[in-house]
């Protein structure tokens, strides 16, 4: 276990921007005084003329990005999820979503793994907020490989996209030759027949760990990685739910409005199935290390294992 490669998806984000800059000459990157933290600093260093620091003014930054898109640029707006999706929500809705502009939002420091900064900066609501905007693509990659693939996919796609990245280093789990990324497509990372665990972001790794523990108890869990929360891969979820008859969702986000809600929206209409939603249970986070927080709030493999056992 100790030799598993770990990298924070925010690092992947910055690296991907730099790697894709030549291929996408209209790409520009905006920050609000957080380039060092959002990891777009590597892009800024390589392409200073294409990096725009807007200062600590996220609402204006989103509007400037809208204008840049109208002038033919492909802007990536970077900030913490709390400020990109939270503070600037209405700008994202009215200046980007409503006119359907080709603006990409790279939101880092999402969820409780922000850690020591505490609840003011731990955004557990961004997926819910972004899902409500018509036409918005919402992605939450699980590791370095998926994060880079999501950035490329966002650049190839024409229209508004929101991508959620984390602060803490997480294991690389998609490092296999068959891996391919497509907006709106989930992947079955482990096949099973007794229960479906649908996870997103850093919780995919927890779900895989939980499935291994469940296997030791004779429970055969299917694990689905949903990177694109909107549009949701309903076909994949419905097929799995039909097979297992029980669904658990896992996300580093409020159980209100995120992946769990998206899965329930689908299942309740098309295939009513019992669902257990694992996530932040309508509470704020707190200061602590990322690892300690994930453990306390039951989002690590042990926590997911425990919740699934109780559910079954």
């Amino acid at each position: 276990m100790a030799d598993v490669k770990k990298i924070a998806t925010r690092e992947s984000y910055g690296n991907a921007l730099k790697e894709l800059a030549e291929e996408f000459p209209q790409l520009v990157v905006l920050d609000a005084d957080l380039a060092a933290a959002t990891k777009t600093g590597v892009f800024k260093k390589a392409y200073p003329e294409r990096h725009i620091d807007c200062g600590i003014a996220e609402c204006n930054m989103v509007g400037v990005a809208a204008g840049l898109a109208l002038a033919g640029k492909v802007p990536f707006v970077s900030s913490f999820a709390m400020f990109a999706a939270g503070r600037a929500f209405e700008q994202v809705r009215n200046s980007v979503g409503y006119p359907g502009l080709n603006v990409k939002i790279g939101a880092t420091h999402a969820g409780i793994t922000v850690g020591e900064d505490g609840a003011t900066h731990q955004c557990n609501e961004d997926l819910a907020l972004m899902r409500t905007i018509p036409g918005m693509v919402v992605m939450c990659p699980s590791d370095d490989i998926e994060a880079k693939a999501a950035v490329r996919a966002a650049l190839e796609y024409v229209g508004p996209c929101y991508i959620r990245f984390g602060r803490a280093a997480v294991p690389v789990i998609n490092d296999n030759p068959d891996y391919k990324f497509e907006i709106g497509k989930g992947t079955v990372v482990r096949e099973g027949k007794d229960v479906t665990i649908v996870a997103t972001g850093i919780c995919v790794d927890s779900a895989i760990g939980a499935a291994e523990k469940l296997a030791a108890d004779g429970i055969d869990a299917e694990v689905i990685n949903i990177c694109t929360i909107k549009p949701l891969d309903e076909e994949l979820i419905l097929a799995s739910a039909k097979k297992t008859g029980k669904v658990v969702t896992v996300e580093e986000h409020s159980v209100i409005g995120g992946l769990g809600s998206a899965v329930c929206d689908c299942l309740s209409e098309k295939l009513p199935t019992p669902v257990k939603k694992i996530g932040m249970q309508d509470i704020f986070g707190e200061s602590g290390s990322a690892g300690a927080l994930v453990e306390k709030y039951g989002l690590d493999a042990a926590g997911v294992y425990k919740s699934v056992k109780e559910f079954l």
Partner: protein
Amino acid sequence: MNNLELQKRANDVRKGIVTAVHSAKAGHPGGSLSAADVFTFLYFEEMNIDPTNPDMESRDRFVLSKGHTAPGLYSTLANRGFFPVEDLKTLRKLGSYLQGHPCIHIPGVDMASGSLGQGISAAVGMALGFQMDGKSNRVYTLLGDGEIQEGQVWEAAMFAGFRKLDNLVVIVDNNNLQIDGAIDEVCSPYPIDKKFEAFNFHVINADAHDFDSLRAAFDEAKATKGMPTCIVVKSVKGKGVSYMENNCAWHGTAPNDEQYAQAMAELDAIAADLEKAGEA
């Protein structure tokens, strides 16, 4: 276009505003009328636009940051030939493309707007994009004087001043009235010119209803290099319709049939006077 021609067009724009809002039984006539001459000057004289090719890449851009005065923009676009004047009567009606606030799918509309404070940021972004690419497109945005109470306006102004966006012109329609009353009684933004100066804008004060004054201001803006320009235009809310002038009750109210008839009679009388002036 000479001043008399511009005055005639502005009067047509005003008739379109009153007709649209009357037909919709809702909308914002006061701030549309106060800005009617500015709209007219921009679309009939100042901006590089082509009604037969609304998406022309080299066109100048306009963002109506005070989006609630959509009837003013729509009437101007219609009178300029972007879409039929007759369509103004569909304003705000179900199925009409003339939405209550500007929508990007309307021919000639460069950006959706209406949530106050947001349009200026989009205009700033456009100006930055053109500057980065060395393009000559100019960007204009019109704000209300009440609108500048929004904090985002000053985020955008700080950015534009810092970035030296000399292809950007911010126009503030200073009619001194907002929904709850006079702007200096609600939450005064004065001195407006000094504030924009402090944000590194070249500031010009002009008369919103005098085409010589507007022409001089926009020419000065074009000649200004190394900083964005802000033109503060002193205007009369409801200008052109006697009972609407300087009355904040007409910010967001539609005239009834009788009031509409009176407004049109007043504007027809102005039109007749302008015709006579042309013959003399």
